[in-house]
């Protein structure tokens, strides 16, 4: 018995400890994936003054012709290509401020007469010219190589955006505050319009959403603009399973931020309550264990909408309206009926007011479990200490035999062992309340 006990306890401990230790090791390798985007900025050289003067001279030579508003040429495609550059626009651009020379970007034109253009269309020309951006903006350029736009171009869609489609060319305006690196307020406003040039229907939807209407209508800086969800240079394909699985984290970035949410009286428990629910638990686990796998469990936008996200108390589309919520449920649970939406606690933590039944069950178990286990634990502890006390008092060989009739038993017995002792005798030794076993 003693020996067995010794084998059992370490065995049990080992069973518990091994997975635990493995899991700890697993967690330790969590890779910090903070992609700190370095802003490629042009450092001004020490002899900036002389250089600037030289650049200005060079640019004047180009502008001598290219400041003529009508200057243009006709491409083989028949498209007219304006060759006009407004000196004012260029001077007020980030590159103008930095004192870049025309030839910094137009590296192949040389002096006049220029070599003939190799592009047959305006798009061709853009695609030839934008690659020069990487000379100064290598980091951003590298990121774009991993973007949905680059992949679309690789797949034969030349219209997919390149640097200049979003940033412009001669009139590039700053996006971020050079001091803090934060997105400028006016840039936030500009972004949806920029994306809208190619994604006009999505932009129209965005305008109807709680986010878009606040940004475009009121210039509200708290709402997300396109890039807050989609990212900037390495814009991801938002239709993949991987994007879907991690999308709750996107929403949570703002929606768990009390500073931002408190202004509008919006709960910050939305993520926590989602993850606690069947849907959210599953999605979270999928994201952790198989981030590329498809799951049929919904994420935030499956219920709330994607670009047309509405307030939950929106009088038409709000999910607080039962029929709207049921309709959402029925997208995935086609046979759901009127009671079904209540199975979802609407991001509320169970409370007596909102969800009395769930709350009551929870409270019941939180009392019942300690009461039951506590009772068991007390009895186990009492029994264990009694066993120990007995063993201390008695020789070990006998101690292993649990409760034994005491030596000074009234009935004379053979002294050999438990096998010979008769229960009837023991019974008589017991207190008077020991009878009645035959009930």
């Amino acid at each position, binding site marked *: 018995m003693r020996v067995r006990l010794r084998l059992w306890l370490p065995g049990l401990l080992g069973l518990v400890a091994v997975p635990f230790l493995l899991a700890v090791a697993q967690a330790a390798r969590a890779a910090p994936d903070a992609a700190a985007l370095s802003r490629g900025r042009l450092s001004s050289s020490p002899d900036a003054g002389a250089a600037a003067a030289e650049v200005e001279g060079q640019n004047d030579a180009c502008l001598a012709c290219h400041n003529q508003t009508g200057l243009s040429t006709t491409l083989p495609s028949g498209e*007219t290509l304006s060759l006009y550059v407004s000196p004012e626009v260029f001077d007020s651009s980030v590159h103008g401020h930095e004192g870049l020379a025309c030839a910094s970007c137009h590296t192949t034109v040389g002096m006049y007469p220029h070599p003939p253009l190799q592009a047959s269309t305006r798009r061709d020309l853009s695609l030839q010219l934008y690659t020069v951006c990487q000379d100064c903006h290598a980091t951003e350029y590298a990121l774009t190589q991993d973007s949905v736009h680059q992949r679309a171009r690789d797949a034969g869609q030349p219209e997919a955006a390149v640097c200049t489609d979003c940033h412009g060319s001669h009139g590039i305006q700053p996006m971020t505050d050079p001091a803090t690196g934060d997105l400028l307020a006016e840039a936030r406003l500009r972004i949806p319009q920029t994306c809208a040039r190619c994604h006009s229907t999505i932009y129209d939807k965005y305008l109807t959403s709680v986010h878009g209407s606040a940004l475009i209508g009121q210039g509200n800086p708290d709402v997300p603009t396109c890039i807050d969800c989609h990212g900037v240079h390495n814009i991801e394909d938002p239709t993949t399973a991987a994007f879907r699985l991690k999308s709750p984290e996107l929403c949570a970035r703002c929606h768990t931020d009390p500073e931002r949410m408190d202004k509008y009286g919006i709960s910050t428990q939305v993520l926590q309550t989602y993850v606690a629910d069947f849907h959210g638990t599953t999605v979270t686990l999928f994201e952790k264990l198989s981030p590329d796998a498809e799951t049929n469990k919904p994420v935030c936008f499956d219920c709330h909408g994607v670009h047309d996200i509405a307030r939950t108390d929106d009088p038409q589309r709000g999910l607080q309206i039962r029929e709207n919520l049921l309709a959402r449920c029925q997208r995935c649970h086609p046979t759901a009926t009127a*009671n079904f939406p209540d199975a979802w606690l609407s991001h509320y933590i169970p409370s007596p007011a909102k969800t009395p039944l769930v709350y009551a069950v929870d409270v019941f178990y939180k009392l019942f479990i300690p009461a039951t286990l506590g009772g068991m634990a007390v009895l186990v502890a009492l029994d264990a200490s*009694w066993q120990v006390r007995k063993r201390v008092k008695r020789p070990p060989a006998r101690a292993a035999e649990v409760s034994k009739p005491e030596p000074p038993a009234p009935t004379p017995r053979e002294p050999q062992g438990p096998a010979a002792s008769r229960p*009837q005798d023991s019974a008589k030794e017991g207190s008077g309340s020991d009878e009645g076993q035959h009930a």
Partner: protein
Amino acid sequence: MPEPLQPNRVVPPQSDGPGKARPPAKRAPRKARPESRRHVPEVARGHEAGERTYKRFDLSQRIEHAVFLLSFTTLALTGLIQKFASAGVSEFVLRLLGGIETTRIIHRTAAILLMVVAIYHIIGLLYRLLVRRSRMSMLPVPEDFRHLWQDVLVYLGRRRRKAYYGRFSYAEKVEYLAVVWGTVIMAITGFMMWNPIATARALPGEIIPAAKVAHGWEAVLAVAAILIWHFYNVHLRHFNRSMFNGRLSRAEMEHEHPAELAELDSGVPAPEPSAQDLRRRLRVFIPSATLLTAALGFGLIRFVTLEQTAILTLPPAEVGPAFVPQTPTPAPTPSAAPALPTPSALTWNAGIGQLFADRCGACHGDGGMAGLTLIDYASALRGSDNGPVIVPGEPDTSPLVLRQAAGNHPGQLTPEELELVRQWIDGGAPEQ
């Protein structure tokens, strides 16, 4: 009420090994059945002759316990990692099991197994109650509370001997009833989560999350109770092997079930049903039990197959082409050059000179390209390195006009401007 899932005390090593335990088990139906007080003491074969052992669980009960143990453990493992899904250990085990969906399949399979065991237990119970008329030794009686009190007195040093347990002590009864309660709760709440749409058709929707809460906490309770109560009582305090080999030694009987042993030793066995009675009862029992088994089995199949809760593939949250350019953006048409002030007369000084200066001066200023300077009258008429470009009176042979008319000169005059120049040359290209 005889009980399969009971912790029990073990026969010391000299009793039959697992292989040898079989013969007595087979004999059991003939002589003694597993039930209540029916253990007939048997002399263990082999070594240490004279040591008697007492049958406690027959083979079917031990198998039932083993299957229950398997499904319970599987359910506990696959369930707790879902309840505590965010814990690191859970993530590790979930990964090991092949992800959450696989884990759910395992969990549900184990649940089906557990319900099969439950149905088997119900039928077996009815057999022992109705056919064998065994005593319901698993039901708690007031006596059990007295036993508990007596044990507490022992622990407190106020009494010398532990209570005088019968076939099942209060500790065993608590455990059995906990298993029954737990299984019922888990089956009901499990049904609700497995078939939420059917549930919400009849009941308020909120019952489903409530069922989830109950299911999770009940699991915690069950597992903790097993670890504290069951493990202590039948593994730690004393390793009771009767659930594996079916038997208890006399010594174990004395400690664990003294009252039952006393009864056995008193030599007054409870009346056995006569063969005739058995046959008569079985004639009713077998068809009814078959019917009940079929009904419960059908219920189980419905439980499992009642509804397809959700579609398997989610529709895309938003459909429509991504690339829809705004109003086809026309290339910005190069705006026309602003009209120069019309010269008041066709002379260099009255405006033609200004036109050349504005339009051509950038390249053809002082020392201009190709040696051509067009910002003063004399230089303009002198021409380029290749000779004169303006031939007064002969616009159609003037290289300047020819070059401009051909187009694509960087610094292109508009047709109107070129016409002025042509007229000016035609009129002799006068300075004044």
